[in-house]
């Protein structure tokens, strides 16, 4: 479904992504793990079009989308839950969700998806008229995920969904990610919480200072000694 070939990204003179390649197949959960500053978020932002690549290719279903704008990529079925949630704090829950469907014109479908999001996140349904900035961190994460689902994406990018959340909530969020995946959405997950990410991922890539250094199935990497030492504290 998604294929990245030899992607290079620069911030000024800093070479942030050094020719990375990765693939996400239809229906998979793929995770990208690594330490702070490894380039995980930059990878996601380049894939979703918020950052321009210096060279390399991004293919979605075989089509080259490297030169497309962020909004064209959303139209093609990509959606992002940005790092740090970034909900629209002065708007209500409902308004946030409606903005997630900004590019869609099918009112009936939007309404249906709104119900779907409320089913998946009952807490949002209770708070649909509440101002998003007054939600707890976990609820804001759910809102950001619901908002991203409102564009009815084929592939969903999640950037550090566990950031700043209590362990119990992290488990809840990861359960929801699994459910979203089961209902047919392909997922690319960027995480620092490697043990949680590896548990739910079909495959995983490990990044270090702008390059992919390891890849394999979630299970393989969870067993690997290097990974245990570096990321799982074993």
């Amino acid at each position: 479904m998604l294929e990245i070939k030899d992607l290079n990204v620069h911030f000024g003179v800093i070479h942030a992504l050094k020719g990375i390649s990765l693939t996400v197949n239809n229906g998979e959960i793929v995770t990208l793990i690594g330490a702070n500053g490894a380039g995980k978020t930059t990878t996601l932002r380049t894939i979703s079009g918020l950052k321009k690549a210096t060279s390399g290719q991004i293919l979605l279903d075989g089509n080259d989308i490297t030169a497309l704008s962020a909004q064209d990529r959303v139209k093609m079925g990509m959606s992002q839950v940005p790092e740090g949630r970034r909900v629209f704090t002065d708007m209500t829950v409902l308004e946030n969700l409606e903005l997630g469907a900004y590019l869609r014109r099918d009112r009936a479908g939007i309404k249906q998806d709104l119900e779907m999001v409320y089913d998946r996140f009952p807490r949002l349904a209770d708070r649909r008229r509440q101002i998003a900035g007054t939600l707890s961190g976990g609820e804001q994460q759910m809102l950001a995920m619901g908002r991203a689902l409102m564009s009815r994406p084929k592939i969903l990018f999640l950037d550090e969904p566990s950031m700043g959340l209590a362990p119990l909530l992290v488990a809840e969020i990861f359960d929801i990610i699994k459910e979203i995946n089961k209902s047919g959405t392909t997922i690319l997950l960027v995480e620092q919480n490697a043990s949680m990410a590896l548990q739910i991922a079909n495959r995983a890539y490990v990044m270090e200072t702008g390059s992919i250094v390891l890849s394999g199935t979630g299970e393989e990497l969870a067993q690997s000694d290097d990974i245990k030492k570096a990321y799982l504290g074993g």
Partner: protein
Amino acid sequence: MKVKNLMEKPAFRKFGGIIVLYAVVQLLISVGILNDYYFATIVTIGINVILAVSLNLITGFTGQFSLGHAGFMSIGAYFCAIVTLRVPGIPGFLLGMLAGGAAAAVVGLLVGLPTLRLKGDYLAIATLGMAEIIRIVFQNIEITNGAAGLSNLPKFVNWSWLFLFVAGITVLIVNFLHSSIGRACISIREDEIAAESMGINITRYKVTSFIIGAFCAGIAGALYATYFPIIKPDTFGFAKSVDILVIVVFGGLGSITGSIVGAVVLGLISMLLASWTDLRMVIYAILLIVIMIFRPQGLMGSREFSLAMLKRAGEQLNGLFHKKSKKEEN
């Protein structure tokens, strides 16, 4: 009974208040209580309402900090004056208004397109520079009569015209904000990155809101040039841009009714202080500082004024009194 029925119609609730306002002022003018001196204050307030509401669209709702609103105003004023000096009568007036608004919108597009692509405060510097360039151009070309400005301008603006333009532009901007494009603009203010990842073309909507704001400022300038007999480049300097910004911040960034209340309150304050010419600016500044200390979010914050709000405030006051009387009993 009949009055009560009328009060409950939604259309009346929406527009009843402003129609009553129109009728009352019209009556006061025809009876002669509101003389020319007071009317000049009303015109200034009306023009400031348009300027503040339109700057609020750019700065308060879309989140783009602009320091050049007086520049757009001066373009509107000069284009309109040049038209009304050549085309007589009401057609000239309307053509002038249109020319003023359109010219300001075109300049808004030219300034906005390159600068609104950039993130950060580039727009503030670019618009500041733009307003200065416009002022210096008007000071040095022949058709605007240089620093002396244009004088003997024909007067068209009466209460009805003023009311029509102020109410029309306010309704235009409120409707724009409630449209889906308006929502997109607000989401840009809230979080540019999130808006972009929702698929919102942020440059396009920033430019759209900037052009609408510039157009309205042009109309405000054109109203100025069809009421006051003289326009000079100095009238539209940096200080005027700051004045408009003060009204917007004072009323509340992101509140249309706040901008209206701000323009009216500050307009009345400067009228009342007019007799103390020496102390006027000092008192004005002190008042602003005091209000900003006690209400840093502006008079209205980002909320809108409504009858429900008055009701709540009334209930709170009521509650206070009740508490007091209970204490007294004890």
